[in-house]
């Protein structure tokens, strides 16, 4: 049954229009699955010259005043499936496209702030105006991560919406990653409008530091995040993030709502990119992809069945554990080299796939190239991420590594289980919620844990997994079976969101 209520999502990126990480996937899937019960509107940035799948839109515009100047904002509107989309751009078309590190596309450290927080405030103010103009029956606003929290800097406008539309609605911040939070320093104060200035100053006086995420945590009705375990870690203050004080002092309890996987695409039976589809009954088809990948990487395939292919696929950042694969400060990679020597003694092949942090000019890329040249026979690295390759590599891999320092939810482990490639993960954040370790729950196992964050521990876990792979195929098959029959689909996970909304005790429209 569908309610005549609208959920507004504000996000920095939305797949497939513009996406650089898991945030874009979730911002795309969540509204679609929520459409079962509510109307959903997504408001995002329009990135001049960088948008995909963008057709049949209609254009509109409105003006807002910022620091004494009227600005014209354009929006691109269309409806896809059941979701309505608005992509906002400033009159000055390149402002957003030049923001947030997009100017540095090959340098994929996307959620770090490379541009002024003022741009995100302007965006927030424009979003509020758009809501005022276009949205009826608003029930809940979900701001995805700190880039979307500019609205909280204008509480008077939020109030206006409520009184003009004559309804009460709720606001929430959905934290995909607490690591990046839009830090605010004093030197920006002279450039802020009065209302944001007052709020951020107050925050600064209270904590001697301020961020847009901190402001959102203080102002939003609800603070959400993407897995139970990450919520627990945040509530207990045991994740390596700064400024947890914003949360811990707010007396708001952060609520964990597990992300789903979009199996309409990320499934070996439905993948638009796999030529030879397979499922839990026919997973031996994986060998076809493995052979292809061996060819692509230039690996000898004479003993392919007994040579596990290990895949490490993610944005190659420190959060994802890249420092285990290279020596961050040592150009000669001495320590990393001995790790690879030990690793390849196990008779495995390793593939590293993903956009390197800070791009191909930076040290991560350079170190990986150096290591690849040294271990050509067993090691392949490719820095240019796209989804087609991602699907094919997942299909080919026997083992997928996720040695993250922290992991709010993680999607790659969900995908890898669906594709029958066994995840070896650090039991942190969402990884712990979604992967069951063979050494803890043998018969129900879907993967392996890496106990400590260091190369030895990583190597140990790989060794144990490889031992099972090579010597106990029946056990390996059981793990594959378990993994492939796990179900993290959005169809199921969306229920958590519905339960949350039901629990909100929304004050419905109030007639005066």
């Amino acid at each position, binding site marked *: 049954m569908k309610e005549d209520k609208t959920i507004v999502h504000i996000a920095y990126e939305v797949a497939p229009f513009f996406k650089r990480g898991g945030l874009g996937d979730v911002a795309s899937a969540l509204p679609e699955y929520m459409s079962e019960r509510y109307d959903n509107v997504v408001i995002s940035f329009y990135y001049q010259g960088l948008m995909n799948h963008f057709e049949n839109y209609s254009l509109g515009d409105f003006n807002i005043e910022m620091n*004494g100047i009227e600005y014209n904002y354009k929006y691109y509107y269309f409806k896809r499936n059941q979701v309505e989309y608005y992509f906002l751009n400033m009159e000055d078309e*390149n402002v957003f496209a030049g923001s947030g590190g997009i100017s540095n596309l090959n340098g994929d450290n996307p959620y770090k702030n490379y541009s*002024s927080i003022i741009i995100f405030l302007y965006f927030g103010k424009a979003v509020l105006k758009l809501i005022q103009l276009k949205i009826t029956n608003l029930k809940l606003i979900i701001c995805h991560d700190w880039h979307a929290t500019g609205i909280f800097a204008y509480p008077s406008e939020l109030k206006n919406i409520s009184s003009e539309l004559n309804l009460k609605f709720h606001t929430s911040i959905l934290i995909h990653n607490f690591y990046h939070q839009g830090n605010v320093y004093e030197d*920006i104060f002279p450039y802020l409008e009065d209302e944001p200035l007052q709020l951020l100053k107050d925050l600064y006086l209270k904590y001697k530091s301020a961020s847009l995420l901190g402001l959102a945590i203080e102002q939003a009705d609800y603070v959400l995040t993407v897995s139970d375990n990450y919520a627990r870690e945040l509530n207990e203050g*045991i994740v390596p993030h*700064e*400024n947890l004080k914003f949360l811990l002092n707010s007396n708001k309890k952060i609520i964990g709502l597990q992300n789903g996987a979009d199996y309409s695409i990320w499934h070996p039976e439905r993948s638009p990119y796999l030529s030879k589809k397979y499922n839990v009954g026919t997973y031996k088809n994986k060998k076809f992809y493995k052979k292809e990948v061996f060819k692509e990487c230039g690996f000898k395939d004479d003993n392919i069945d007994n040579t596990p292919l290990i895949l490490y696929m993610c944005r190659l950042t420190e959060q994802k554990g890249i420092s285990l694969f290279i020596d*961050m400060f040592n150009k000669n990679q001495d320590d990393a080299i001995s790790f690879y020597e030990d690793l390849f003694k196990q008779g495995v092949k390793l593939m590293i796939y993903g956009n390197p942090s800070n791009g191909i000019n930076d040290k991560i890329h350079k170190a990986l190239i150096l290591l690849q040249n040294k271990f050509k026979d067993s090691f392949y690295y490719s820095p240019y991420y796209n989804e087609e390759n991602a699907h094919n590599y997942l299909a080919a891999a026997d083992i997928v590594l996720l040695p993250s320092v922290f992991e709010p939810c993680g999607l790659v482990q969900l995908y890898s289980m669906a594709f029958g490639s066994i995840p070896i993960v650090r039991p942190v954040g969402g990884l712990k919620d979604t992967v069951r370790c063979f050494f803890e729950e043998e018969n129900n196992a879907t993967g392996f844990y890496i106990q400590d*964050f260091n190369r030895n521990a990583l190597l140990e876990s790989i060794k144990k997994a490889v031992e099972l792979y090579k010597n106990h195929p029946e056990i390996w098959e059981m793990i594959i079976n378990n993994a492939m029959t796990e179900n993290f689909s959005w169809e199921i996970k969306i229920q958590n969101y519905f339960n949350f909304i039901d629990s909100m005790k929304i004050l419905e429209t109030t007639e005066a």
Partner: protein
Amino acid sequence: MLKEIIIFNEGRDDINNLTIGIFPAKGRYYRKEMSNNGHGFFHVEVDLPLGISYYHLYINHDFTKEYVDINTPILGQDLISRIPIIIKSEIFNHIYFENSPQFISYINKDIVDIKLVSYHSWINKVKLVNENLDEFDFQVIYSNKNRKYWNLRYNIKDDKNFRIKFGNDEKEYWFLENNKASLHIKESTFFKFPKLPQLHFNDNAVGVGYQIFPDRFCKSDQQKENEIFQTWDSKPGTYSLFGGDIKGIIDKLTLIKDLGFNFIYLNPVFYSDSAHRYDTIDYTKIDPILGTEEDFKQLVDLAHSLNLRVILDISLNHCNREFFAFKDLIKLQEKSKYQDWFIINSFPVSIDETNYSCWHGYKELPEFNFNNLEAQKYLIESALYWIKKFDIDGWRVDVSNEIPDHFLETFIKANKEVKKDIQIIGENLHNESNDFVCKDGGDGITAYSLYQDVFNSYFIEEIVSFSQLVHNIIEYIYSHSFKALKNSWTFLSNHDLPRFYLMLQNKKQYKLAFSLLHIIPGTPVYYYGEEIKLSGDIGNSRYTINWDEYTTKSSLFLYFKKMNSIHNQYHEIFDYGNVEIPYIDKNNKILAIRRRYNNKSICFVLNFSDQEISVNINNIIGTDKNYKILLGELTDENNIELCSNNIVIIQSNN
């Protein structure tokens, strides 16, 4: 502002304690114990000023070894391997301008240089409006995406106030003081021109300098042999002493002059017991190993007769434990009349306990208490002694950003009262010139940010693209006042950095990098031996020069000579000219940087690529037909021939 620093350490169970060492953007270094939160990470909260601060780490209270991360020790005198903590916002406003020396400063007593940045691409006009409502256009010197960098040279005559107007053909706004804008002029809002500071505009005060590390530069024939000296030309260790001396420097002065330098800068020469001599025992005595006061007098006199200025290095922040006042303190303890010269945590003061404030935790280097007037007076009197008696021309103030402003101000004022055009340069690793130059009255800083963001990141680490390189050069220029830019020392290596040639990735770009030193506003300071690509290792750039093999015939030597002679001949342009980017070709990595002053300009056309490329000269200098090629050549009358990794210099009259 409070900043949390988190170091991740799951799995290394040999680490029980982590201590963080903080280099604040302003103020003294300090250490703080990190708390181990038991979930694989260490945590600490520190209070930091705005700007770029740095940190490093110590493991398990072993303060002999510094780390950048828990697995990576710092080698030798590596100043660059520290982790930056950036407390600085990206500004975004229609116009970025403040009525402060960073944006507006005098270049002589009539003309002000005004810089500002606009962030919206619709803005294509910016004007200064004077009291009579006459309008003067700013010029765009560089633009990148939405951002434009503007500049205006304005003759202020008797003007007191000004306004700024910006916009496009359709509408114009007045820029208001609180960073707002208005369509209508507000009578009460205007900016006041800064009062003419009591600056001395001395043309001789800049030029190009040559840095000498006295122990390693040249050992004269008169130097007495000493068993503690290591063999000249052997590889130096941390404590090696080679016996280079002042007479040795005197021997080479004409050579330095011949290379075209305007001043020499000597690392410390005062009495000390180390090779670097930053730990002064006596501030009023030349180290006897280097020579006598008479030798030094002779050096300064000869230098002056060659029109070379002499700049000394002074370590005001800390001294040697053998310094008389500290020695007295150790001996007499509470009874010492010098106890307040230092910062003492508890008595008895003991070298073993290190219960006194010392530089970066090194007990060998007790730090002065700058609230003590006697200590202040002693240091100032000692400095003035060298000006009064020897007529030296300037100071490089070691670790100036760690010394409180009130003392720097007094120190600089006292020096300038005795010699008004004395140059005072502050060592600063944090890119903060504004306090030292605009508040304390210093002349410039050591431009480490230019080294980091331009030379290190493009030529050494190769972590920035060509277009980012250009952006970084412009950002450097726009983050300092004109005065600070002009006087600040720019360099490719020094005694605290590895040799540039050793680190340079593409060795063919050595000359190119040096040419950038000249065309970017600043005072280039060459480090001894750069003219012969003197070797070194990553942790040590203080090797000796082998004078038997020294050649003045190499193409490099001649290139430096040529570059310096162009710099001298057109020094007004290099000193006072504004900066423009008349031409940039990002695909072929061609960049032209022009400096212009009084309708004369010098343009460097630089080819950063490995290919030979020819560029139409009209793209670079416009219509002037009376241009001169000072370096390089033309393929024909319309085209400049740019060899790979090479440079052409053009002088024109527009």
